[in-house]
């Protein structure tokens, strides 16, 4: 199963703007390098927040988790973060397993993410 990558930039919101990355298909040993390649220019810019929309992601392996980890690390160094939304149950379970492993901090940010998304939502409503 291939991987489709759609990178969307949120416009007009300077403080809370984020880049959304929609993934469709399978993020695995064969497709992870392509995601890494496509994320490189995004990560090289000023983007602080990446939101990975995983609604259509059917499969993930550690090769894909490594790309997420790398992105998160780079964003964190500039005070940003990577967030993960709309996970299907089987993907959610992989994340839960990763969270339970000692020394893996990458996927422990769900609470922060909720706070971040709530803030974005509020800002959006106030602008209307």
């Amino acid at each position, binding site marked *: *199963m291939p991987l489709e990558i759609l990178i969307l930039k949120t416009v007009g919101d300077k403080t809370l703007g984020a880049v959304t990355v929609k993934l469709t298909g*399978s993020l*695995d*040993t*064969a497709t992870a390098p392509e995601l890494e390649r496509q994320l490189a220019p995004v990560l090289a810019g000023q983007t602080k927040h990446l939101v990975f929309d995983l609604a259509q992601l059917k*499969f993930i*392996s*550690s*090769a894909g*988790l*490594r790309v997420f*980890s790398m992105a*998160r*690390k780079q964003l964190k160094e500039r005070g940003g973060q990577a967030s993960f939304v709309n996970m299907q149950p*089987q993907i959610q379970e*992989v994340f839960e*397993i*990763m969270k339970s*492993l*000692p*020394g*893996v*901090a*990458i996927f422990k940010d769900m609470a922060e993410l909720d706070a971040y998304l709530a803030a974005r939502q509020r800002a959006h409503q106030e602008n209307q």
Partner: protein
Amino acid sequence: MTLKLHATPEEVMRAVEALQQFGQARQIPEKALFGLTLALEECASNIVNHALRRDARQMFRVTLEHTGSAMVIELRDHGPAFDPTQAPVPEMEAGGDDQPPGGWGIQLVRRYTDEMRHTREGEENILRLTKRLVQATSHK
């Protein structure tokens, strides 16, 4: 069913797709099949990336077997002797954030299979992954 595969990521995913079709044809529950698929991807990737160092001329073999009460995946390669079942569990370190993620794959395999057994026969690594299927066919 046995597949002979070249040591490339694309061939790993060819094995994964074969497993998905194999499992669906035998009505393996979706959840069990997802776990097996992930375990196969991780173990086969290890063989391709480490044992065979992505040398596409090298081959490895994957055998899929459904015994009724279990699914068994066997992987065979001629790389250096390596027993992934002995891989250490990542340890918590001071400020253990963002550790090198090398051991993640094997941890996932542990969680998604019931048994992982490695043997070395002659020049060959043999890794057997077993997933027990509880009432696999009597459900839905």
